[in-house]
Structures are given as structure tokens and as C-alpha cells.
């Protein structure tokens, strides 16, 4: 049985309004990820307990969706738009430039020091900014950065990797 600790109590309080057999599971998973940044093993067990499900069931379900993460996110996440408008404006080149700058092989990975990760994003209609990315820091800010060029994206990635703030990079 999971021992109640500060962190399990915190998870319990995040999901206290969700009920079993009520179609609430996805929302509960989302709420926990939103608060904690990811779904830890502990969180999955607490959620399972609340929903009277097996932990494995909850994990099996959550792992179906790209949206859920099971590892702590990097400090800064670069969400790269994979949409068609960006694509026609060389988003693939932007992605490769960012990955190369960060020493990553593919999207979904994060730098060894946990500073930056690159994930695939979906178009949200701000195509006038194409090619674009969103730069996010969990629960701090989420910023669209558009009209990118290879040079601009390399500079941005380098800055983030070295730990500079996003404001500094964009204005500097």
C-alpha cells in the first residue's frame, strides 16, 4: 500500500473531485500532469487507487496518448510545429537545426543536463507565424516564437541550452 507522504497527499488533493466510473480518468491524468509536470509512478498508483483501478490499467490507458509524459520534463520544452503551413516554410530544416544544436537525435529526447527538450507540436492556427515553435517552461510561460530562420533557431537553441532566459535571448 502506498504510504501517504506529502507528495501523495498533494496528488490526492489535485484529483479529489474526480470520481471512478464517471469518465474522469483522462481529466485527472491531465490535472496531475498539469500540476506536477509529468505522471510519476507514484502519481499513477495514487490515481489508480482513487479510481479503484489497477495501476497497470491506468498506465496502459495513459500511455496511449502522446500528451502524457512519464518522465520529468526538461526545464525548457521546445514544441516544434509539425503542421503543413510551417512545413512549406522549411520547418523540417528548423527542426534539424535545433536538434543538431542541442545534440539530440530525434524529437522526444531531452538534453543530458535536462535543460531542453524538443517535442512534436500540432498546428493551432497561428500559421501567419510559420515556421514556428512554442517555447515553454512548465507552469511558467508558454511563448510562440515564429517567422523562424535557421540562424534564428540555432541562436535560440544555443541560448536555451546555456541556461539564458527566453526574454534575454529574444531581445538580445
Amino acid at each position: 500500500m502506498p504510504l501517504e507522504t506529502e507528495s501523495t497527499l498533494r496528488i490526492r488533493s489535485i484529483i479529489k473531485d474526480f470520481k471512478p466510473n464517471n469518465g474522469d480518468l483522462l481529466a485527472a491524468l491531465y490535472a496531475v500532469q498539469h500540476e506536477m509536470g509529468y505522471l510519476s509512478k507514484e502519481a499513477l498508483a495514487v490515481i489508480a487507487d482513487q479510481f479503484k483501478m489497477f495501476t497497470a490499467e491506468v498506465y496502459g490507458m495513459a500511455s496511449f496518448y502522446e500528451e502524457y509524459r512519464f518522465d520529468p520534463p526538461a526545464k525548457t520544452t521546445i514544441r516544434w510545429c509539425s503542421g503543413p503551413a510551417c512545413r512549406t516554410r522549411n520547418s523540417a530544416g528548423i527542426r534539424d537545426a535545433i536538434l543538431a544544436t542541442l545534440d539530440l537525435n530525434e524529437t522526444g529526447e531531452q538534453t543530458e543536463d535536462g535543460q531542453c527538450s524538443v517535442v512534436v507540436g500540432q498546428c493551432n492556427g497561428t500559421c501567419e507565424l510559420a515556421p514556428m515553435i512554442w517555447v515553454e517552461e512548465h507552469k511558467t510561460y508558454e511563448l510562440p516564437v515564429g517567422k523562424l530562420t535557421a540562424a534564428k533557431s540555432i541562436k535560440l537553441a544555443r541560448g536555451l541550452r546555456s541556461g539564458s532566459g527566453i526574454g534575454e535571448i529574444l531581445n538580445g
Partner: protein
Amino acid sequence: MVEISINGKTVDAEPGRRLVEVIKEQGITITNLCYIDGLEPYAGCRTCIVDIEGGRPSSLQLSCTAQITEGQVVRTDTTEVKQARQSVMSVILANHPDRCLTCHRRVHCMPGDICLRDDVVTHRCLTCSKNYRCELQTSCENVDQGDFSEPWVGEKRSYYETPPPEPDRANPFLEFDPQMCIICARCVRACDELRHTGALSLAGKGHTTMIAFGAGGQIHESDCDFCGACIDVCPTATLMEKPNKWNGRADDWTSAVCNSCSVGCTITYGTSDQVGSENIPVIVRPERINPVSQDQICVRGRFGYDAIGPEDRLTTSLERQNDRLVPRSLFDATNLAVEQLRTVIDSHGAQTIGLLGSPLATTEEAMALSALADSIGTPNIDFSHGVIHRSVLSSLDQALGTNKLSADLTDIEKSARLVVIATDLEESHPGVSLRIKGAARKNQAKVVLISPRWSELDRFACSVLRCYPGTEANVADSLGKLETNPPLGISTEQWNAALTIVGSNEEFSDEITSVVFAPNAIDAEMASGLASAACNLAIGMVGNTTAEHLFYLPVDGNTHGVHDAGIFPKTDGKAFREIILGAISGSIKGLIIHDDNPILNSPDTDMIISALSNLESLVVIDSVKSTLSDYATVMLSEAAFYHRSGSITTADRRVLLHNSIDSGVEKEKSGIEIIKRIGAGLGFDFDRVFSYSALAEYPSEEALVQQQGRLRAIPDQAVFKAEVQEIDVPMRRVDDLAVFTSRSLYTSWDGASSASEEADKLDREGTAWVNPGDAQEAGVTQGVAVTLQNGSHSITMKIKLDDGVAAGTVYVPSYYRGGAIMSLFALEGLTGGLPSVKLVAADA
């Protein structure tokens, strides 16, 4: 029954049944890679395609989803069906190493040979642990997959192109190698629907779907309790038993019984003709003889045969010479034992001999031991837990007029209302715990749990009455009396929920109600109080049919059998405790112990040891080099349990046959032969056959062989007496922290009795459970070592902080370090039954 036609043959079948099962019963080979007999079809693999006349939209239908209807015309053998299956199979093989599966040469190839098809060595059936016992392999043969044109030839293939996923080999029981997985999801469904454990799931989506354990981590971090039900259903080499992964191909099977608890699951030992594995089981699988266990066993049943290494087995007999044990042949050692016993009898009288039997022995061995005591002329015979068992029996007798309850454990899963009183049934009696979970999940049974500690059953219960250890009887009694106020320390909400269930006799009048209790193994007063309270509670719910609805689960395997066989003190004889006191005072000089180990089983280790050290002769007959070897004067090496035959009487008094895998070599080392030879050596007539059929109410041998698993040693006439008893055990609390204990799941008797380093291979149980509040007060934190101090006695071990034990209590598994916790308990009985300890941080 309706008539259908399969391949032109008329067959009678029950309407509504799954067609695939009926086809298999007809002896027709059919592939069905995702169907599990008896469970709802999953319809994931599509390999069970058959032709059903008039089927829509096409006559090609899945036989696992199709149900029997009058006049069905089924064909499994048309070209169209075969081709359909081949093409389905080819899709499955796209994610599996398949070169051998489609190669006509496989039967001629050996693992070292060069592959004519240029296959990578490690990608072949020939080098796979499941070769020649693999369902996927036979399925491919059945559909002649080698004849199928391979649409992928020359293409990039997913199996050969993708890097294999990581295997999990981190635990001692279950190996998981997902590169062999065909995502049939049988394991997921077995764990969920057959075990109610839900340790695994299908994770991810699309072609990257994988089997995952728990929250996506390693197996031992998940809820898995290593029962191996998933291994039994896995059609490939993905899930395999670790100890026998590479040598588990059996040539022969032998029906047997697991004696690791009183459920008595029936198992079958697989044996192999391979050099090096003669005469030991290479694998254990469940066998559907006992209708209680059906096709399920727990980790102890499956891996018990392999619990200890050869170094902990007693493979040669030993003689004590001062403080050394010297190897002797069994013949010489037996003669020596006889000599020693004769000396004791001649110089001090037969009454100074004591005998201890064991519920781990067969009934026949117990009969022989009892006959030996009679021949010697000593009434002093018992087993360590004897007094516990007898005190329960006498409570039952008083309340119900019989102790041979007719309640049948197959009723548990059919029950709609259950009250369970136990410390942790999931660990002590896994087979019954499984059926209780089944009742809760399949039958929506209302379960009330009275228990001092969290267990897996908690989540299946509607009401959990977490009581102070030792007060189970009081709580059960108050519940039976429907007292409005909860006993001290019990949550009002849970109490009210329990009252609603126990008090609704009307509502449950057409359904089965069951009361299950598993007494502790240490304190007889507590056990008998619990038995009376359980009777009272049951009487309140089911009146004078109590004997049909009340279940007593003794601690060890064959407790009923050995008691029936006569392992109890005869007139004026000494019981276990008196034998020990007698050894200390000098009125017992010689002791014969068969399979029992008081150092592990009995309270008060100090007293036990001084008793054993004081004996003139201690003759131990055992198959493991138990901790008794420090005190024995002679150790007679007995054959392992799997090398012995006999019968076992389970908790619900079912008589089951246990067969030896041995072809004769070990026969003379069987317990019964050794006991007989001691008897003959002492000059008694022991040239006779011991059989359960001689015991009152036991079935005849003929009847039992015909109706294996169904016959029970109970009176013919139903007993309808039910008298409520006064429960006079006061509610007691100890001053400091109360220590309580019970049997744990992963530690085998053999391992614990020999205090083997390997006893708890999984290392899940080497901790004391301490309530976080108590830990804080004592200033100790998670994972540190603490000393549990009780006067001059103490034990030091790591702690685990857990809300699952009530404040003021500490739980330690009884098999931890060869029964180390027993030193804190007293043989004389303790007030309240439990030792009181202080928690002291151990010096680093």
C-alpha cells in the same frame, strides 16, 4: 444440447458455448492464439477462423466468438480456411523471428548448425527457450505456414529491422523478453480476469504497442505477485519461469499437491529425461484436480520445488560427534538412531520419549509416526502448532457439535456475502484469497474484512475493520451481535458498512454467505477465542447451517490429515509445550522430530533451544538441513517432498493424492520407510501398509482414484447444531508496541526452516512494518535498522513505514530469518498473546 456438424461429423454441443472449445474437445487441431478457455473471447489474433455455413458477411468466421447454435455446419479443413489462417499468421509473424517457423528443415537443425536460410543465430526457434513446447510454433505447423507464399520476401521486415526491446530479468521468478511477444494480450487478461491482480497492461498504441508491468517499470516494482498465470497462457517465449526457462521441457508429468498452505492446490511436476535433470522436477504447472484451485497456483506452489539450493538440502544422513556432524549412510544412521532410542527407553522408560510430527508431511507418514509412538509405548506426540489446531477444533465442537465442517471452499467464489478474519490471507492462503477476490469481482460479493494489517484483500472489501492485533475475536463477536458502537479503535464508517452487510440476512437469504477465519499460529487462547467468535458471527448470519458456511483455514498444508492420523497427545500424554518443558526438566530424554521445526515454528526460541540441547537423543528426519541440525544427535536424510507419495487433507477436508516423481531410487529415503525402519529396528512389527482409507470418514482408495479432488473426509450426515458461545477474551493492549506476525508469501518453509540465505529470494519481506506515527515518536525513519526490544530479548531489522499497520503495532513476517521473531514470544502464553516492544534505533 443441440446437434451441429463439424467437418461432416455430427456433434452434440451445448448451445451458447464458444465454438472453438467444442472443436478442440473433438480432438480437431485448431489455432487459437489469443483465446483462453473459459474467458470471454478477445478476438485479437484471428487465427481461429473456420467456415460456418451461411455466416455473414462471409462464411469465414472466428470460432472463438461464434457460439453454438442448432444445426450449425462448420468446416475447419477447407483450402479457403487454411489460406485465411496462413495469411493471418503471416501478419503475426511480421513481428516475430520466423525463419524457422516457415522452414521445412527445422526438425533436422540443431542449435549450432548453419542456417540454410542464412538466419541470425539468435533469431531462431532452435535457439529459443521455448523450442518444441511453443504454441506459436505448433500453430504455424498446423497451418503449414511453410507453404505460404511470403509476401514480405525482399522487403524491409519490421522484426529484423527494429532493435529488440529490453528484456526484464531482474527478479528471481519471471523472465520477460518482449521481442518474442505477439501482443495476444492473453497475459493481460489472465492477470486481470483469472488472478484479479491486474499487474500488466497493453501500453502504447499501434505497431509500437507493448506489454507493460505496473506503471511501466520493472516487474518487481509492479503489483505482480509472481503466480505465473501469465506464463501458463503465453503462447510464446516472452513470459517464462526464470529457474527453468532453459530446461523446462518436460517429458513426463506427475500429479501432486502443494503443501505450502492448507488450500492444497493440485499441481503437476514436469520431469525430463535430459542428462543432469533426472529425478528432479524441471517445471511445475497447476493441474485441475482440486476444484478449489482449478488452474491456478501461487508463487509458492509454482516455485517451491526450487526454493533452496542443494547445499541446504539434507542429502546425506549425519551423526553428531561432539560438535561436528559426520556423514553416515542412511542405513548406518538409522541403526544409530535406533540404538540411541533403545538406550533412552531402557534406562529411563518409554515415557521419556517424545515425538513431533508435522503438517508438512503426508497423512500416511503421520500414521506411521503415530504407530511408532504407540509401539514405543509413549503418549507424548504432537506437532509445534498442535495445540493451536486442537483449541480451534474444540471451539468448533462446542459451538457446532462437530469440527469436521462440511463447508466446501468451492462455495467461496459463489458467495454473495463474505466475512474474512485473518492477518493477511493473500500471503498465508493465496488460493482462498484469490477466490474471495473472484467473488468480489465476478459476483459483486460484499466482503467484510477483519484484520490488523493492510493486505491486497483490502481493496476488494466493502468494509475493512482494522483492529488491534489479538482483538479479532472481540471485533467479530461484537459484529455478530450487531452492536451499534464500534469496538475501540475501529472506524465508525467502516463499522456501519459492516453492520449493514452482516445484518441483512433477509436480503441475502437466497444467496451464499461465507465466514472464513485463519487463526494465528502462536497463541492457542487467541485462536480458540477467534474460532468461537467466528462461529457466533456465522450463527448470526446463517443460523444452524453454520457448519456449511464456516471455513477454518489451518496454517500449514496437511494439518487436518496429520491430526486425523493421530498426531496429538494420547491419554495423559504430553503436548508440545509439556514435551519442551519435560526436556528441560529431564522427564523427556529422547525426541524424534519428523519434518517439524520448533525453532522456526514455536514461540520462545531460548526455551526451545535449551530443551533441545538438554536431550540425550534428538533424532531428526527431514529433507532440509534445518536449524535443528545444530542440536540433533542424528539427522536422517529424507527424500524431498516431490520424491514422496501419500495423501493430503486440505482446509476443507478434501483428500488429495500426492505422487512422487521418483522412479524408485529415492523410495527407501521416503519418510514412511525411515519411520518404519526405526520401528522395525526397535523390534516392532512395522511390515504393513499405511493408508488414509483406514481413517474414519475417509474415502476408500478405489473411490478416491475415480473421483480425484471431489471426495472429502466429512460426516455423511449434515450437522445442524449451532450454539452461541460466551467470548471471554478481554480486549487487551500491551504497554508499548505490540508485535504480531504471520506467514509471508515469498518465503518457503524449506528456506525458512534451514535459515537459508536464499529463503526470501525476492527480498520483499525482510522488513518490519511500523506505523509512521510510532516511527516519528521513536525518532526512526524509513528504511533504517531498528531494534525491537522486549526485556532481554531483541531483534534488529530494517523497518518499512506503512499506514497499513495500526498505531501501536509492529508487523514482522514469521519466516523472517528462520523465525527470528519467535524469540520475542513466550511459550507459556503472554497476556494478550503479543509481546510488547520498544523501538530503538540500532547503532549504525
